[in-house]
C-alpha cells in the first residue's frame, strides 16, 4: 500500500510500527518513544522549576493533576499521552460519475432474479442520490502468527486432532470500516472495490459529496485495527494453514510489526428509489459501478406460485411411491 506520504513522526525501534505525534509509547509493543528534542540546557545539579508567568516555584498539584504555580495558579504543560479524535488524511477519488451510478442501479434492479417483480426496473423511481466519503482505516503490517486448532485431519477415535504452527503473514491494504452511516453488510460488500492509490488528501468527487467524520479517538481506533488484524489472521490461518476440512478452537497470537495506518474517506453513492408505495435503499461503490448492495421488493405472487409448484411436486412424488 503506498497511499501517499506517511504522516508518522517516526517508527518504533523494536517493531517498526509508525509512531504518531503525541505517542509516548508504541501502540503495538509499548516501547517508549524518544523524547522530543529540546534545546539542551546545561545540566544543573539542583533544579527549581519556575513559573513562566510570575517566576514563583512550581509544585505538582494533585487536584489539577499537573504542575501548578501556587502564586498565580497557572498550570505547566507536561508531555502526556495524546488521544485526539481521528481525522481523515486520505480521500479516494470518485471514478464513477452520478449518471453512471444511476445506470448501475437500473442494471442491478434488472438482474435480481425471477422472484422479484417483473416491472421493478421499469417502475422504480429514483428519489435521492447522495455521494459520500465514508470513514474507514486502511492498514498494512507484517505479523508472526502462532496458531493452534483442532481439525478432522488425522483424527482417530475422537472427531478432532490437535494441530499447531507458526507463520509469517502480510496484511496489505486491509480496510477496517469506521462508519456509522453504512451497515456492516454494506461495507463488507464495498471493501474489495477500492484502489487505495487513487486518492489524495482532499479527494475528487461530485459536487455536494458528504464527508463523514470519524467519531472515535486514536486509542479506540488502534484497538479496532489490531482486533481486525487478529480476525483476518484467524481467517487466513483457518483457510490456508489448518489441515483438514473442518476445524474448531482456532487460536492465534500475533507479534505485529511495521503497522502503518491511514484514515481514509472511501467514496460511495447512497441511492433511494421508490417502487409502488415503499422506498428502498441501495449503495454503490464510488470506484466500481458494478459493486451494488441494497434492498429490493419480492413478488409474493411468484413466491406463492413457486411454493405451490414445490408442494404439488412433493405430493405427486409421495403418491407415486
Amino acid at each position, binding site marked *: 500500500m503506498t497511499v501517499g506520504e506517511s504522516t508518522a513522526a517516526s517508527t518504533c525501534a*523494536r517493531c517498526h510500527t509508525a509512531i504518531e505525534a503525541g505517542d509516548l509509547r508504541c501502540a503495538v509493543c509499548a516501547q*517508549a518513544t524518544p523524547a522530543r528534542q529540546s534545546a539542551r540546557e546545561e545540566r544543573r545539579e539542583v533544579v527549581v522549576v519556575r513559573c513562566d508567568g510570575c517566576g514563583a*516555584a512550581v509544585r505538582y498539584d494533585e487536584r489539577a493533576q499537573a504542575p501548578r504555580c501556587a502564586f498565580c495558579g497557572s498550570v505547566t504543560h507536561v508531555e502526556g499521552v495524546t488521544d485526539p479524535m481521528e481525522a481523515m488524511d486520505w480521500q479516494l477519488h470518485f471514478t464513477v460519475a452520478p449518471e453512471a451510478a444511476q445506470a448501475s442501479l437500473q442494471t442491478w434492479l434488472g438482474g435480481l432474479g425471477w422472484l422479484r417483480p417483473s416491472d421493478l426496473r421499469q417502475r422504480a423511481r429514483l428519489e435521492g442520490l447522495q455521494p459520500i466519503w465514508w470513514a474507514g482505516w486502511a492498514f498494512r503490517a507484517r505479523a508472526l502468527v502462532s496458531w493452534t486448532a483442532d481439525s478432522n485431519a488425522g483424527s482417530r477415535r475422537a472427531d478432532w486432532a490437535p494441530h499447531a504452527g507458526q507463520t509469517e503473514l502480510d496484511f496489505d491494504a486491509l480496510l477496517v470500516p469506521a462508519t456509522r452511516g453504512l451497515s456492516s453488510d454494506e461495507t463488507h460488500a464495498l471493501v474489495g472495490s477500492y484502489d487505495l492509490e487513487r486518492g489524495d488528501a482532499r479527494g475528487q468527487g461530485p459536487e455536494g459529496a458528504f464527508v463523514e467524520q470519524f467519531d472515535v479517538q486514536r486509542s479506540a481506533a488502534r484497538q479496532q485495527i489490531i482486533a481486525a488484524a487478529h480476525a483476518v489472521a484467524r481467517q487466513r490461518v483457518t483457510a490456508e494453514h489448518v489441515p483438514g476440512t473442518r476445524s474448531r478452537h482456532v487460536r492465534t497470537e500475533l507479534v505485529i510489526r511495521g503497522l502503518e495506518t491511514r484514515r481514509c474517506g472511501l467514496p460511495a453513492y447512497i441511492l433511494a428509489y421508490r417502487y409502488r408505495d415503499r422506498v428502498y435503499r441501495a449503495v454503490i461503490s464510488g470506484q466500481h459501478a458494478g459493486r451494488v448492495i441494497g434492498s429490493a421488493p419480492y413478488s409474493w405472487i411468484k413466491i406463492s406460485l413457486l411454493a405451490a409448484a414445490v408442494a404439488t411436486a412433493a405430493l405427486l412424488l409421495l403418491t407415486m411411491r
Partner: protein
Amino acid sequence: MPPTAGWATLCALPGRDVEVIETRTLECEGCGAALQVAPSERTVVCPYCAAPSTIERPATRDRPDPTFTVGFVLDRERAAERARRWLRTSNPFARSAFRAATLDATRSVYLPAYLYGAVAHADYSASIGEHYQVVETYTTTDARGRTQVRRRTRTETEWRALSGRYASYVRDVVVTASRALPNAELHAVEPFDLRALRRYDPAMVSGWTSEEPSLGQQECLELGRQEAQASLEHELRRFMPGDTHRGLRYQPSLQDEVLDLVLLPLWIFAVRYDTAKEPVRIVVNGQTGKVAGKVPLSPIKIGLAIALLLALVVAFYLGAKP
C-alpha cells in the same frame, strides 16, 4: 537521627535495621541555603524558603533518568479516608484494635519502578485431550427380577501429543526498583492506569518526595523476567486446543527486552495498634486509591468462627437424622 531517617524508618521492613545513609550538602537555588540531600532522594524542600527542588544527577546504568511519571490524583485527605475505610473493612477476622486504630505517620512518595517489556518466544509441548462418546450396553435386573438390557453414553478422552512455537509481546510488567517496597507490596496496589503516563519532567515531582532507584537494573530485569514467564505460562494454557490438556512444558526465550524507569505515586501510612508490636505499613495507590497492607488477624475471632461453623454442621446433621 539523620534527616532522612523518617522515610527510611517508615519503609524499613520489620526486623531489619535502618541503614544509615550518607547525606550530601547542596545549595538551594531559591535562597542559597545549604540543603541536606540523601543519595536515595531525588527531591527536597528547602526548610528556609520552602522552594521545592529536584536533584538531577548524571544517569548511570543502575540509576537511569526516569522516562515516565504517573502523577498523584489523590490528595492526603482522600488517601487517608481510603486507608481508614480499609482498616475497618479489610478483613472480618482483623484484630479489633487494628480496625479501630488511627493513622500514625503519613508520607507521600514517588516510588521508582520499571516498566518491563519484551518479545516472548516459547517452544512448547503438551498432551492434548480430545473427548469422544462411547455408547455401551449393560444388563440390569429390575425390582421384579427381570433382566433388562440398557444403553448408556460414556465420555472418553483420547490423548494426542502436540508441539509448536509461540510468540507474543510482553507489555506493561511493573516491577519495583526500590529496596524499601518489595514487589509483592507494589503488586497489591496495582494496577496503575498507564494511559495517564507523562513524560518525566522535574515539574511532575516538584514538591513531593521522590526516591532514586535502589535496586540494580539486573535485579529488576530478573524480576521482570519472572513475571513475564509466569504470564507466558498462563497464556500458553489458554492457547492449547482440544477439550483439555496436560503435561505442558515450554522453553521460554525473552528477546528485545526493555526497561523504562517510571515514578509511581504512593501514599504510605503507619498504623500502630499495639505498643508491643511493630507498626503496620499501609500502602495506598496515589492514582486509583487501592489500599493494601498486612492485616493482623485475631486468633480468638478465627477460633470462634470455626466453633460456630462446627456447631452449625452438627446441628444440621442432628436435625437431618430421622
